[in-house]
């Protein structure tokens, strides 16, 4: 299907045309280091998931659901698009997609960095708990829903209800926000935020001026029961 990529020496090739996904994933999960290339992914699910060592994996084509889920320490690059749940619950390491990602990218991520060079669709960073997410294009509706910690950086626009019911994550958007979610508000960009953003953009390899972004975060109005409503019960 895809043209054979120019692979560096010492790269272990896992061709999914003739290797079952389970075997390929086991090879990655048991390696302690080294570089791997997955060929002919064909939209298959759960590729390169559950990695727990500083291996480097490049997937040459489009992947299905839950690619690089639960990633720790590894660096996974998808040269194509990713389906639902990319890098779900990522703990550390880097997951990069050169194309678009479908819904719930980096959902519940605790740490590490997820870079989507194209667009991410709905619910990007839902319930994020410390992961840094950088999206080169736009994010869909309900992104950063119930986000608890970490940074979501969007170079394009954000869809409706960004940051709905957000706790403490920071959202940086360069373009337009269709509509902010409940309890998500615009916040001043202080020097410390510019520094944070500059660092994340540099780590993501994205060229953008931090000053062009707007910061959004929690108004913290949903944290506590409002005593004014006591009479309603």
């Amino acid at each position, binding site marked *: 299907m895809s043209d054979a990529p120019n692979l560096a020496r010492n790269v272990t090739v896992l061709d999914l045309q003739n290797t079952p996904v389970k075997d390929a994933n086991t090879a990655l999960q048991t390696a302690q280091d080294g570089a791997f290339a997955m060929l002919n992914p064909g*939209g298959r699910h759960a590729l390169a998931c559950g990695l727990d060592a500083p291996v480097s994996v490049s997937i040459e084509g*489009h992947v299905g659901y839950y690619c690089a889920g639960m990633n720790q320490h590894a660096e996974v690059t998808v040269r194509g698009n990713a389906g*639902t749940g990319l890098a779900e619950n990522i703990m550390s390491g880097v997951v990069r997609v050169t*194309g678009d990602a*479908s*819904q719930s990218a980096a959902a519940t991520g605790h740490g590490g960095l997820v870079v989507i060079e194209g667009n991410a669709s709905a619910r990007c960073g839902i319930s994020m708990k410390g992961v840094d997410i950088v999206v080169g294009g736009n994010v869909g509706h309900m992104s950063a829903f119930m986000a608890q910690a970490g940074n979501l950086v969007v170079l394009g626009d954000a869809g409706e209800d960004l940051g709905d019911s957000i706790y403490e994550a920071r959202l940086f958007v360069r373009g337009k926000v269709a509509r902010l979610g409940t309890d998500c508000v615009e916040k001043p960009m202080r020097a410390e935020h510019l520094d944070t953003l500059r660092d994340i953009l540099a780590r993501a390899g994205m060229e953008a001026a931090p000053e062009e972004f707007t910061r959004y975060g929690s108004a913290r109005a949903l944290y506590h029961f409002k005593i004014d409503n006591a009479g309603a019960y």
Partner: protein
Amino acid sequence: MCGIVGLFLKDPGLYPRLGSLMLPMLAEMCERGPDSAGFAIYRDGPARPTLSCLAPKGFDWEAAAASLAQATGSPCDIERIADHGLLRTAADLHEARRHLIEAFPDLSVLAAGEAIELFKGIGDPMAVARTFGLAGRSGTHGLAHTRMATESAVTIAGSHPFSTGADTCLVHNGSLSNHHLLREVLESRGETLQTENDSEVAAAFLAWRMREGDTLPQALEAALSRLDGFYTLTIGTRDGFAVLRDPIACKPAVLAETDQWVAMASEFRAIAQLPGVERARIWEPEPSTIYTWGPDGMQVAA
């Protein structure tokens, strides 16, 4: 969960291969819906008015054909395939469909039209495809569905595609919450529904709007405001093809287009084997956005 695929050919050179291109698409979606399946093919070539029907074992097909011929004054031929029968007639298809449904309560009229032929069954989707010869079928476009029943029983009545209007059919992933109310509205406006399934209501809604004069995009715009629930829909008409997702968009969809074809699937893996896919434009359809293809190319309306 269900699996949906659709393929709309732009290159007439591919028409003879429609079924053989759709078969691997359907195969990839078996895990999403292993309990039943169905497909609709829009034949290429001259119009051949056909009623695609399904009946239980022992059904008297000759009697049905004779009754239809007598009621309409047009002769009726039958092509039998397993528990299906394709009834060919020159009669008005809307009237013919209504006559068969009223006169033969055991018979299901799956589709009626000049180009559409529709087949469905329960059990392994690949067996359904084999029984009805999907791989050998030629045509301009087609839809297929693999079902994992959630709201209703695993019966052939719940299998997709659904069709109530001439040459119009629909496959649905999701569930509608206002289908009882809509069914009453549609029946009072002359639509004849044959199952208790929510997806049939969506098909009937579109058929009704288009009988009232709506274009396909207009009918889909009306659907966006009237259908309540979760849906990714793929729709076929005589010469058109459309995709629509509800505003929440939790049911998946991928679109891909090349100079030769437009493909829709629940997941990319169903598209991965199409010829020229490495050069395709691939994207996820936006929520509440109407994507239609016809003789004039693609239209997008948000």
